[in-house]
């Protein structure tokens, strides 16, 4: 099912309004009935919600629903554990195992008591397994952006607990990558809005920074990259392939890193202080880029598969026009 334009428009308005009014992600997700929205139209719901979550530089476990919906499993899972490493070349083989060590990221560990769905590498391929919350231990990720609220979890699972194979698991990871790509675009849009507002009023040499060509060109490029990133995400949902999702996540990660760099430069010294909102954008952008495959790693994966003779996909086919 596809959400019609007016429903999508209303959903967008209410999410944006709620974040702008200072609402917390968790309450907003409950208000819009996130589970139903994802079930109705995961692509539209994800593109709208995650861009707004990014713009608000908030975090939540909304992504879990995207993964669970893509897997469409029987049974109830109340949380998802994401792999730390997704590059097939970096996944360690674990042949002949009695127990499966699960290491990963949980987006919001609070109040989880039921079953977890974990995406784990088995013999260098991602699989989905089920593992009870009781056997995992969690500690805050910290790192570059402690405010993201993520946890690092470890636990030991039964190797017989596989609930989805490699193909289905990659499909779920692809949906998650597209949602994260939208969130990255949102973070970039926030950075651009902050920079645009700053340079319009801040004066140097007697005139606003925004009247200097270098500032204008940089911000115009930021807008271009963010628009292109959003367009790739849309095309990738339509294409529905693993490569398309990889392309979208890689482009968005690269675009937003460049946007944050340009915005920081034009805003100047205040932008590199910890308390400035641009720094929160910079930190979140790096965390999201690293999650489920960084731009560097994904574009290397794409490139090596192409150089090895793999099909170079046309992200948009002429028929799609």
């Amino acid at each position, binding site marked *: 099912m596809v959400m019609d334009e007016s429903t999508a428009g209303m959903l967008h308005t209410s999410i944006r309004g709620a974040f702008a009014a200072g609402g917390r992600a968790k309450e907003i997700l409950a208000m819009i009935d996130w589970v139903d929205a994802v079930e109705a139209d995961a692509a539209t719901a994800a593109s709208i919600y995650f861009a707004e979550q990014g713009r608000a530089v908030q975090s939540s476990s909304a992504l879990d629903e995207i993964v669970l919906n893509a897997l469409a499993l029987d049974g109830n899972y109340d949380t998802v554990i994401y792999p730390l490493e997704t590059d097939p070349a970096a996944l360690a083989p674990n042949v002949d195992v009695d127990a499966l060590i699960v290491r990963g990221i949980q987006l919001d560990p609070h109040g989880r008591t039921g079953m977890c769905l974990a995406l784990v590498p088995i013999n260098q391929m991602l699989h989905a397994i089920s593992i009870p919350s009781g056997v995992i231990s969690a500690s805050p990720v910290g790192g570059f952006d402690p405010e993201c609220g993520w946890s690092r979890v470890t636990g030991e699972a039964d190797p017989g607990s596989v609930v989805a194979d490699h193909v289905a698991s990659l499909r779920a990871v692809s949906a998650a990558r597209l949602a994260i790509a939208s969130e990255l675009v949102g973070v970039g849009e926030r950075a651009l809005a902050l920079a*645009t507002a700053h*340079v*319009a009023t801040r004066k140097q040499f007697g005139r*606003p920074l*925004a*009247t*200097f*060509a270098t*500032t*204008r*060109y940089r*911000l*115009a*490029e930021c*807008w*271009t*990259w963010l*628009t*292109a*990133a959003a*367009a*790739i995400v*849309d*095309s990738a949902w339509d294409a529905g392939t693993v490569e398309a999702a990889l*392309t979208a996540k*890689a*482009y968005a990660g*690269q675009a937003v890193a460049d946007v944050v760099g340009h915005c920081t430069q034009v805003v100047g010294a205040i932008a590199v202080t910890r308390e400035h909102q641009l720094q929160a954008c910079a930190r979140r952008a790096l965390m999201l880029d690293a999650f489920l495959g960084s731009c*560097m790693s*994904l*574009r*290397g*994966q*794409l*490139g*090596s598969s*192409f*150089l*090895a*003779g793999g099909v*170079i996909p*046309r*992200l*948009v086919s002429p028929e*799609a*026009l």
Partner: protein
Amino acid sequence: MLYRLERLREDLATQGRNDTYAANSFGRAYLAVSALRARSAQTVRRLSTSSTVGPEASADKILLATAEQLVLDTARELLGDQFIFSDSPADIEWRAEWQFSRAASIYGGAGEIQRAILADRVLQLPKE
């Protein structure tokens, strides 16, 4: 532009070049082409539903110039000496295309003009 990437891949296969650096550069060029394709598909769709395309279309031109130059620069860099010194018809063509790609950020409204249009009319920054 994808056919150029396909040709580049054939040349690199002949050279036996498939190292990490080449893979990264190739992947980067592919991303730029994909960005262009995704964005211009949107613009074409908008045109076909008869809505007018406004100043936002300047982004398409910037993406075009970026992708074209990046693909040809990637070829120049990865093919190395062959690109610079070879007089085979195929390599002469690479060089001609590379030369032409230098103009991509100049013809049809230079890159600076496109950026100024976006700054003025999309971002609505105060004018220079």
